[in-house]
């Protein structure tokens, strides 16, 4: 069997239809002007030109899912007696994420440490993750805001992917990264990719240098703990934050969730749903006390979690994949990479000029009215 494969451009839809035969294929699809990951079928319009607005994390970690259902059973003879039955399903259908970006795929690795490599693995995540093959499309050019190379990734980074796909003139070069990924070579409509390997690998390298690295110098985020612990710093850099959940919900690595019960008469479910650390209610206690009452404290925790706490726990790995979605889609353009670059410290100058990536010559942008 060949080691790599190739799918002609015009055969891509057919190829995806083949893939759909024994798995649900999630692919970036166009809805209006929005690209979203959703189940691919004949009615959807594939869009591989740019990263999807949302990451494919929903495939393995749905926006909401049932942890278990419960049923109150009344004794037929004695209404005073009521028992509960619980039922949990951790058996999931096969799925394929087609057209994730390397940052998206890397996001799953951030999840894995928390959800799988622990003494209490999460059966839902794990169940879906094991049943999901991730076929990643290398980025040919960066999108506004992205900075994967600054957090250990890159436009052709393989971590987290089962298959790497490189878009070439005539079609898609497909190389398995994991054992699971090798299965893709057996799908009909795929041809041997060997003749395209060289061009593809060249392509993969090319785009790397186009990606910005906001962390200048050595290109690694560094955090001054003194500055990090300074409330005024956060008050200054996040005053414009609206405290919404766009950044966390679009983040391929944000994995926080909420658990709530819903019940209708005798039946109900315990539901897990996405939650975000930028929401006030996230940490709000029943008594009304809130340990993170302000958006400053919440933002500090979010940055801290990604760049301090997670690395502290998991061998220095940064819990940010640099996809740039939180920057691109932030309603007020809060830029986490900028904030982290400020955090180099040791002393934060409030009058700091913006980092180089930002326009300094604002006069040239004048609207001549």
């Amino acid at each position: 069997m060949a080691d790599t494969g190739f799918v002609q451009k015009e055969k891509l839809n057919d190829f995806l239809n083949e893939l759909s035969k024994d798995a649900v294929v999630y692919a970036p699809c166009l809805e209006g002007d929005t690209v979203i990951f959703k189940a691919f079928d004949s009615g959807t319009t594939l869009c591989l030109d740019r990263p999807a607005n949302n990451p494919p994390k929903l495939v393995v970690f749905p926006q909401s899912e049932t942890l278990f259902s419960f049923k109150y059973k009344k004794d037929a003879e004695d209404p005073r007696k009521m028992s509960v039955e619980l039922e949990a399903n951790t058996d999931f259908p096969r799925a394929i994420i087609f057209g994730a970006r390397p940052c998206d795929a890397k996001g799953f690795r951030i999840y894995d440490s928390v959800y799988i490599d622990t003494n209490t693995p999460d059966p839902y995540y794990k169940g879906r993750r094991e049943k999901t093959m991730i076929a990643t499309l290398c980025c040919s050019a960066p999108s506004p805001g992205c900075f994967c190379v600054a957090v250990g990734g890159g436009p052709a980074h393989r971590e987290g992917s089962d298959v790497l796909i490189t878009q070439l003139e005539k079609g898609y070069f497909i190389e398995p990264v994991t054992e699971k990924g090798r299965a893709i070579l057996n799908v009909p409509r795929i041809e041997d990719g060997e003749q395209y390997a060289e061009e593809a690998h060249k392509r993969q390298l090319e785009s790397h240098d186009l990606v910005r690295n906001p962390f200048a110098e050595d290109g690694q985020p560094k955090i001054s703990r003194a500055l990090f612990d300074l409330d005024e710093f956060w008050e200054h850099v996040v005053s414009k934050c609206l405290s919404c959940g766009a950044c966390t919900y679009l983040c391929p690595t944000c994995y926080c969730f909420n658990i709530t019960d819903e019940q209708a008469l005798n039946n109900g479910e315990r539901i897990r749903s996405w939650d975000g650390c930028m929401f006030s209610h996230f940490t709000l206690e029943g008594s009304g006390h809130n340990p993170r009452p302000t958006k400053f404290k919440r933002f500090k925790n979010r940055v801290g979690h990604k760049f301090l706490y997670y690395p502290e726990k998991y061998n220095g790995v940064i819990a940010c994949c640099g996809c740039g979605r939180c920057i691109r889609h932030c309603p007020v353009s809060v830029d986490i990479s900028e904030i982290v670059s400020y955090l180099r410290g040791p002393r934060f100058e409030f009058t700091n000029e913006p980092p180089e990536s930002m326009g300094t010559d604002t006069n040239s942008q004048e609207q001549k009215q």
Partner: protein
Amino acid sequence: MRVGVFICHCGNNIAGTVDVAKVAEETRKLPGVVYATTYMYTCSEPGQEEIKKAIKNENLDRVVVSACSPRMHELTFRRTVEKAGLNRYFFEMANIREHVSWIGENKELNTNKAIEAVRMAVEKVKQNKPLYSSSFKINKRVLVIGGGVAGMQAALDCADGGLEVLLVEKSPSVGGMMARLDKTFPTIDCSICILGPKMVDVAQHDKIKLYAYSEIDEIKGYVGNYQIKIRKKATYVDWTKCTGCGTCMEKCPSKNSYDHFNFGVAPTRAINIPFPQAIPKKAKIDPDYCRQFVKGKCGVCAKVCPTKAIDYEMQDEVITEEVGAIIVSTGYSLIDIERLPEYGGGRYPDVITGIQYERILNASGPTSGHIVRPSDHVEPKTVVFVACAGSRDKSIGIPYCSNFCCMYIAKQAILTKDHVPDSQSYVFYMDIRSPGKGYDEFTRRAQEEYGVKYIRGRVSRIYPKGNKMIVKGADTLLGTQVEVEADLVVLGTAVISNSDAGHMAEKLHISYDTFGFYVESHPKLRPVETNTSGVFLAGACQGPKDIPASVCQGSAAASKVQALFSKDMLESDPAVAKVNINACVGCLKCVKTCPFQAIKEKELRDGRVVADVIETVCAGCGVCTSTCPCGAIQLQHFTDNQLLAEVNAICLT
């Protein structure tokens, strides 16, 4: 949670068309329900005992009774569960009688509907929270609005019971309609002779404070604590100086003023005392006719007044009073004769109304009791009375009976014969309504002893012919057309509500019916209460009624106030709005929409501004709850979660 459900057969009222056993069986399957049973009459004493027993034995913490309308028995059962140790708000009712068994014909569908109604009640009761009333002090003063016979009776009864009474009368004297009557049926005794002493009592009672020629501007507050703004209208006579001597009235050069008291039978002076027995007996100027006001010069009364009481510069004065209860006895009006074009619509001077005829009959009236017709002051020999002039006439929007016209027409016919022995009276009537004690005998006497000719039929037209009025009508008993040549026609005009009854109701927060009459709490069992606690009704403002009925209601309302005031403290209804200060964002939209100004802003210690409900002022409408975007202000017992539980019980199944 341990909910107990009691499903009432209501004899056959419910069980006849609802399979109550099936309802109980299905109810037992609901989570939280540990007990469900059926009972023949749950509201009966043993039925209530059954509930109490089950609360004890089954350790119930919430109760649902599925029976009749909560408007009927909610309070009954709340007391029952309270006696068994539960908070009275851990109770809900499912109405499966008025809303199910009585209106649905299919037993299967009815049963299903009843099951769902119970399910809704169970889901709601599970969301119920215990609520506790707080008690507050009562201001033991009572306001009586309207000084007619009902209002005076109420005021006197209250005052005799030791309560302080404010009696507000909008005209210059108390007495109302009864003071205008000549005699009363069926005893033919002199109206003012029996009313006069009462009027004097009102004036002299040291517990009664009379505000004559005054109106209610504003009513704020709630049962036990009302703030009233009373407008004392300008009389242009300083009543502290006026002795009621009448000199001003004699000398007043403006002799063509409209006489409100006499319903315009004859003119009066611009400064006048309405009638000899007026209480207070004080003069007042009618600025619409007074030359000093109309022309800017005159000043005769000021000159002649021996006590220098005249004050042309007098302004209305607004006084604030505080009371704990209000009796509304604002009386009635009569339909404007112009609305009856077939009877001449006011164009013919010799077609007059019953009340005008009362004044003509009255010895202290404008004609000193001599019956003369308005056009030529000649004594009429043929008098035609037309009953139901406007009453029971859907075409002009008065479908109801005016209650007392039949009786006063009989009385007036009798009196006519007394005054003018050679006269003949005719009465056109639709039905003779005389159900009171001695009433029917009275109408028979009119016919049998006084020879009054009763013609059953409607009058179709009245028109003049020479100096006579032709009254054309049908005699439905004989089946013929009748024409009577009359010297004088008296219309028993329909009783209607006061033109400002609606405004008054809005000030009082009480409801009124299509015709402007105030609505009692229950037509049979709570005839003088309104749905606003602390406000009671007496007299014809609630619907047309005669003197004995009005007096009865006056006394009844007074006794209700006495009962209310028998305690020093009142319990507030805890089903009022409550603010969750953690959720309140201080937008204060609730403050803007509250119909009762029961919400104000409050600053917390941390500087946050939140809404704050004045519990005793809140009436529990819930407008604030549906206004509040963040669900921070919740009407207790009808919270979002309670209503959502009901919605879900219907929809999510």
